[in-house]
């Protein structure tokens, strides 16, 4: 059986940047002096039935709107909802690091304040980690495979792995792949006490210029429609993904990168652009420099978290960025490249979450 390729035929992204409109491409990057970046809320009523919007927690709104925007972008919004004429995806596979924390906090807070009395179920129901993918299924009446992964910096990556497994084995001809994470005041505060964030407000666009302890918090939702066939609207091919749990040495990482590229028929020098999960934290960024020095001395590289902030599924913003770059065959000026790549055929995304969850995502021009 011929392995089905996974073409990215539609994208939808809600982030701290103006990304929900797919015609735009970071021409006017959002710059704020802060320790946290808030995703720009679109008018959710354009994407979600108004009676649903009222009840939904913010992560659910972000996720459903990004998914809706992605399917519209792909021209594959399904017909049962009465809006589109497409068949819709055969499977929905998502990742979230912390899930629906706004609703979790709401239910937990009420339970504590009211001493287990006078509670209502809505926030409990919506606190379930798979609410985003379930609500998408409900909206588009998708009865197919529906999975949600919730593993820190592997959440989105496992969703990619599962998507590719389902596609390669012809279990699904199309997969709606996505990720969502929300930042709340309390989660920001707790992680601040854990030393995750910068002490002083920083201009996000200059986040990577000076390494210090801490980074900027972020959030967002990004969705991708994967289909087995190339279409005029195809952004890229999503080739492969690999996860490395807690590697100890740079050699371990570069060895794994080599094997990863090799099984995809590529060498390090074939990579045109290396997208890195740098976050400006002095404890976590040096490993990227070590990997470049060892494996990619000649390859053009840039970071992306100055645009979206740090969160467990930030690599999904990276995938959105890489998709746009490959489709439009240009790199937005805001990425400040030291030099221009000669071609834009293969992009390798290398990210790690707090030094524990390292991941590689390989994409190619469609």
């Amino acid at each position, binding site marked *: 059986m011929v392995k089905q390729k996974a073409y990215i035929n539609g994208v939808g992204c809600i982030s701290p940047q103006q990304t929900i409109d797919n015609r735009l491409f970071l021409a006017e990057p959002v710059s704020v002096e802060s320790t946290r970046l808030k995703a720009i809320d679109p008018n959710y009523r354009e994407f979600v039935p108004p009676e649903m919007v009222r009840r939904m927690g913010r992560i659910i709104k972000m996720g459903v709107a990004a998914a809706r925007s992605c399917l519209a972008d792909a021209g594959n919004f399904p017909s049962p909802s009465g809006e589109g004429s497409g068949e819709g995806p055969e499977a929905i596979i998502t990742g979230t690091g912390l899930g629906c924390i706004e609703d979790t906090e709401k239910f937990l807070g009420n339970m504590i304040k009211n001493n287990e009395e006078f509670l209502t179920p809505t926030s409990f129901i919506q606190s379930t980690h798979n*609410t985003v993918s*379930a609500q998408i299924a409900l909206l588009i009446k998708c009865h197919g495979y529906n999975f949600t992964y919730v*593993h820190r910096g592997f959440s989105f990556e496992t969703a990619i792995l599962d998507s590719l497994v389902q596609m390669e084995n012809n279990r699904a001809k199309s997969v709606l792949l996505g990720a969502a994470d929300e930042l709340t005041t309390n989660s920001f505060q707790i992680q601040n006490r854990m030393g995750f964030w910068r002490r002083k407000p920083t201009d996000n666009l200059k986040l990577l210029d000076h390494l210090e302890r801490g980074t900027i918090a972020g959030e967002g939702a990004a969705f991708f429609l994967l289909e087995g066939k190339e279409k005029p609207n195809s952004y890229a091919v999503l080739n492969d993904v690999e996860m490395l749990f807690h590697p100890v040495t740079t050699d371990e990482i570069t060895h794994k990168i080599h094997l990863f590229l090799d099984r995809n028929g590529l060498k390090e020098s074939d990579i045109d652009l290396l997208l890195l999960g740098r976050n400006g934290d002095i404890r976590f960024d040096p490993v990227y420099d070590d990997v470049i020095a060892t494996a990619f001395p000649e390859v053009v590289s840039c970071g992306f978290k100055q645009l979206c902030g740090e969160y467990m599924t930030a690599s999904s913003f990276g995938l959105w960025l890489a998709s746009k770059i490959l489709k439009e065959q240009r790199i937005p000026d805001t990425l400040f490249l030291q030099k221009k790549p000669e071609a834009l055929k293969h992009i390798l995304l290398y990210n790690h979450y707090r030094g524990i969850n390292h991941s590689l995502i390989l994409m190619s021009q469609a």
Partner: protein
Amino acid sequence: MSKRIYITGIGIISAIGNNVAEVLSSLEAGKTGIGEITLFPTLHQGSLPMAEVKLSTAQMLNLTGQEGSEDFTRTTLLGMIAAKEALNSAGIKDVSTLRTGLLSATTVGGMDRSEGFYKKFLEDPAKGRLKDVINHDCGDSTERIAAYLGINYLISTISTACSSSANSIMFGADLIRSGKLDRVIAGGTDSVTKFTLNGFNTLMILDKRGCHPFDEHRAGLTLGEGAAYVVLESEEMVRKEGKQPLAELTGYGNANDAYHQTASSPDGTGAFLAMTKALEMSKLKPYEIDYINVHGTGTENNDLSEGIALERIFDPVPPFSSTKSFTGHTLGAAGAVEAVISILSICQGMIFPNLNWSTPMKELTIEPVTQLLKKRSIRHVLSNSFGFGGNNSTLILSQPPQSV
């Protein structure tokens, strides 16, 4: 994708026993694990029952050699105990010899500890011990279980409500079939928490008498806790190592009801689709299924919807029972807990009873098995797990061939 997947090891901890042998003896004796709430103070003590694992968190720390450590939540400890038993049961001494993965499922993660943290934090955002919240996220339990077992090749966590651990078994099998792993420890773990107890209570689906699955007078589920894992291995590895597997995973399917966030559709669409997919994969005809371990939570909605789906597929419906009347509903662990019970059914030639049943449901023509049935040939068992978000999963477990 045609490779066969075998189960070579099982591990379980639940309200009816701290290991496979204890669970089996409770199932045979018809001894339920449902009782009074003792683990934490709550307004519902005395009025709502629960199915608690009969070990304190401190006892579990001792059992796993982590005395005095504050790094482990109850969810993590349950998972460590069951996953270790599964590994031992499969005779695996060194996980690094093969490409081994750990796929664990959980819905509450470290909520048992975050509840305490959050109480202080609400009073003053500078208060609350960070040590009590750092293990909150679902991935934390999996990373600690992985470290305890020495697994680092591939690890991940699934959370799809009450079908979570059926789904981790499914994804584990897919990863082996696609050649990415040689073997996987797959399952799930969830502890009881005040959060989930109150959550289900607001939905008014907790039966004050303990659950009565598939009974006309059922009034809801009973919350339970536990963990269970299976060791999945490829046919190739089983042959190479000359192992005799406990069971074969012959079919599985996941489908979405796409009807309502918490309620099941009246015609059981999601359940019907999940069972149909699993049967198709296994190439079995419905009449070849010898026993069904139903999801059977005991809520009015689930049992009706699941019952209708069963009647749509099977004619006649084979013997079935809900073992949640023993273990309570262990949420994210339920799929794996019931997969292990289904494997015990195959290995022991037994069908375990559905406790607390007396009156047939008026909408259905089917009745569960209410007495232990022994000395039967159980070749194929179908196990259902359904969750919030319309997430419906079915596993089919079969007697393995005499020699692989």
